[in-house]
């Protein structure tokens, strides 16, 4: 089964990869994700918006099909406002990240891709991250939309095991 087929069959997907495979997995996943939705919300918490847009363009994907949430740029500089990106002050601002997640659905995104959820454990304990992700999953289910959470195995096996409990599909990529 391809990732886009998995996403067609499941609303909430946990995409597991490793640090060494991260770039390759992302490059393989993004075209599949693009196929699965008309408009995509992309939440980035470890690469700035500009870098994400550049890598999407390199893959030949139109970044205008995306709406972005960047929670990393504002930790190092004051971001210039752009029409297709919501800047969140930091990955520790979970309330703001949650609101930004909701606003992606309110702005007609059919699918939200979270890159990379396991990075949050640098800032929060696993229990807090699990509760936060569960809250996002609930928002996606209530809105009848799709969400794909990318996680790195090395960040926390325990977080991945806990997240397994409420996602529809786990894909090792």
């Amino acid at each position, binding site marked *: 089964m391809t990732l886009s087929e998995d996403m067609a069959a499941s609303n909430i997907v946990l995409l597991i990869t490793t640090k060494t495979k991260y770039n390759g997995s992302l490059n393989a996943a993004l075209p599949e994700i693009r196929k699965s939705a008309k408009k995509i919300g992309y939440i980035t918490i470890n690469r700035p918006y500009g870098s994400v847009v550049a890598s999407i363009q390199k893959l030949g994907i139109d970044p205008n099909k995306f709406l972005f949430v960047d929670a990393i740029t504002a930790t190092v500089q004051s971001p210039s406002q752009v029409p297709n990106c919501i800047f969140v002050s930091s990955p520790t601002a979970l309330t703001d990240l949650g609101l930004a997640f909701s606003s992606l659905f309110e702005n007609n995104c059919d699918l939200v891709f979270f890159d990379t959820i396991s990075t949050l454990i640098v800032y929060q*304990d*696993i229990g807090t991250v699990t509760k936060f992700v569960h809250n996002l999953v609930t928002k996606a289910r209530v809105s009848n939309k799709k969400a794909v959470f990318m996680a790195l195995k090395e960040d926390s096996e325990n977080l991945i*095991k*806990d997240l397994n409990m409420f996602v529809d599909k786990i894909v090792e990529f």
Partner: protein
Amino acid sequence: MAKKILIVDDEPHILELEQGILESGGYKTILAPTGKDALLKLEKEIPDLVILDMMMPGMSGREVCEKIRENPKTKNLKVIFVTVARFSEVGKKVLEDLNVSDYITKPFENADLLNRVKKVIG
């Protein structure tokens, strides 16, 4: 003799609430605010049932349950999960693998908690 239940939850008001409900049903209770504390308490005494919050800081309910199953003294202990989460089919399979007797979703009715406990330990 009253059956003994270990309640594990990081939220003090939930601990107190469950304690009140279960003691009104004739059960004895032991309280643990963290997974680590629960495992320490299990080294001292083995209850008839553990009621385990799924999402706790530090060690999650799933992780505590794994430790319970790994320990020969507690591996057959009955466990009920309490959770705000809606488990997916994948999650239900994990519960099966952990040999969890039942799970209750928060918020719950007092009678529902008591009925489920009675079903599991009588």
